[in-house]
């Protein structure tokens, strides 16, 4: 699988030259491969949202370069526009960007901006609505009459309908109840399995990151602290706790067991894996 998105020494400073200067992203080097499911995780204010806005040229890096498929995306207005369509970004709390009369029209806004034919727009809207679980009846409603969770789905569908090569979601579960969270997560997982789109998911939750992603990038104080598979990341629980993040609960149980002198593998992060470890331990002890 080839590399699709690449960041080279990317830094970004808000309000450069004013007393409010703040470097939110510092010297980031990252490469994402096509078809990956990557989770970006980090404490509040660590620069996650700022970082992902570089992926589709919404923010031009103060220094450094961003490449999509090997091409610098900040060369001209045309390449920036192409990047918007190649890399779809769902913002934090995206439901506040809905504006059209009906859900259908709102989802169609992105594809229409791409200059697609009416038939193609319609096909994409229907496909996106199906992917996020919006039925035909809801498509004719006003987006302002929907519940919070439904609005969130519509907003995500608005990006999916553009059929981007890379789908970036900035905390799509924030502010939803546990059921709503699971539904959104399952929806994203299904979408990834079906379309093999590269997905970059920003989240606070180690559990979600562990369950969904095959690679985790940990951000801390504007820089990348760790980068690797979930197993590799959770093996460094000392570093994680120091940077204000948790390991999944199941991993912390194993860590505590290890601290008490039992021989278990602490890089396990799934219930299944933990069960295996505990069974092995039982076999040894009895």
């Amino acid at each position, binding site marked *: 699988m080839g590399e699709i998105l690449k960041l080279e020494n990317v830094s970004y400073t808000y309000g450069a030259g004013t007393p409010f200067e703040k470097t939110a992203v510092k010297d980031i080097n990252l490469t994402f491969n096509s078809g990956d499911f990557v989770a970006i995780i980090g404490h509040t204010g660590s620069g996650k949202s700022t970082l992902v806005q570089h992926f589709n040229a*919404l923010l031009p890096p103060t220094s450094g370069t961003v490449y999509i498929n090997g091409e610098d995306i900040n060369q001209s207005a045309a390449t920036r526009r192409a990047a918007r369509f190649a890399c779809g970004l769902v913002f934090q709390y995206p439901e506040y*960007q809905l504006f059209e009369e009906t859900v259908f029209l709102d989802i169609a*806004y992105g594809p229409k901006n791409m200059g697609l034919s009416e038939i193609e727009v319609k096909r994409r809207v229907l496909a996106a609505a199906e992917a996020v679980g919006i039925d035909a009846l809801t498509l004719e409603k006003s987006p302002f009459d929907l519940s919070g969770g439904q609005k969130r789905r519509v907003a995500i569908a608005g990006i999916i309908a553009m059929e981007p090569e890379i789908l970036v979601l900035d905390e799509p579960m924030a502010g939803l109840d546990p059921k709503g969270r699971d539904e959104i997560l399952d929806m994203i997982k299904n979408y990834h399995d079906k379309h093999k789109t590269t997905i970059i998911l920003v989240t606070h939750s180690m559990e979600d990151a562990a369950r969904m992603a095959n690679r985790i990038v940990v951000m801390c104080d504007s820089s990348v602290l760790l980068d690797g598979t979930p197993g590799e990341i959770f093996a460094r629980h000392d570093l994680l706790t120091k940077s204000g993040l948790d390991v999944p609960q199941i991993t912390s149980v194993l860590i505590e067991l290890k601290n008490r002198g039992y021989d278990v593998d602490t890089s396990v992060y799934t219930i299944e894996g933990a069960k295996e470890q505990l069974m092995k331990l039982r076999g040894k002890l009895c």
Partner: protein
Amino acid sequence: MLKDITLGQFFPGNTFMHKLDPRVKLVVCFVFIIVLFITENLAAYALAALFIILGVKVSKTSPKMLLKSLKPIMFLVLFTSILNIFYIEGEVLVRFWILKVTKEGLMTAFYMTSRIIMLVCATSLLMYTTSPISLTDALEHLLAPLNKVKFPVHEFSMMMTIAMRFIPTLIEETDKIMAAQKARGADFESGNIFARAKALIPILVPLFVSSFRRADELATAMECRLYQGGEGRTRLNVLKLTKYDYVFMVFSAISFVLMILLNVVGI
């Protein structure tokens, strides 16, 4: 891009200028502007410029920020001074084609320009060193006598406070919505004027919706805390004059009197 609007932006600090009572600053600024307009004398203007430079130094405001606030009025300044230079009758200095430059014209242009520039500098300095909240607080105090003629001073200043409080929030929100719509391929830069106006709809609708929601929530929150207007209301921060204020008032008064004297004597 919207963040570049500097007028009315407050830079927190802990300098002499920041510690002054907002009422004193407001009145001094007001009197300064009046004095600027009633004097027309080189020495007096030099003194006024000194007064502003001193203010910039004491408040540790970066001169760059001050220059930035001057940018939007540069056109106005140029326009008025050019008109003045060519259209005022008097002793002719240079003449070419049908235009003539007079000494009186040059002087008037100079005074007009300095006046406008110093006016903007003084108000910007006031804005940079005073939080909007304490500014409206000061306004409420200074307008209090209007209560006698049934002018709702408290309600008026509360409206001002709320409006000022929400300007940064609205700007931030507009930025966010714009970014979100750009991510969906919105294009605000190209096309004719109608296309551009139409491109604003995806920003304005969410902005209005959230503003109304916010206003509604704020009203509910205020009612929950039994807000009922100005009568009998006490304050968290009572404005009180300190020795800094007296020093500043005396210093300003001396400067202003000097300016007027210089003007009268006509050095």
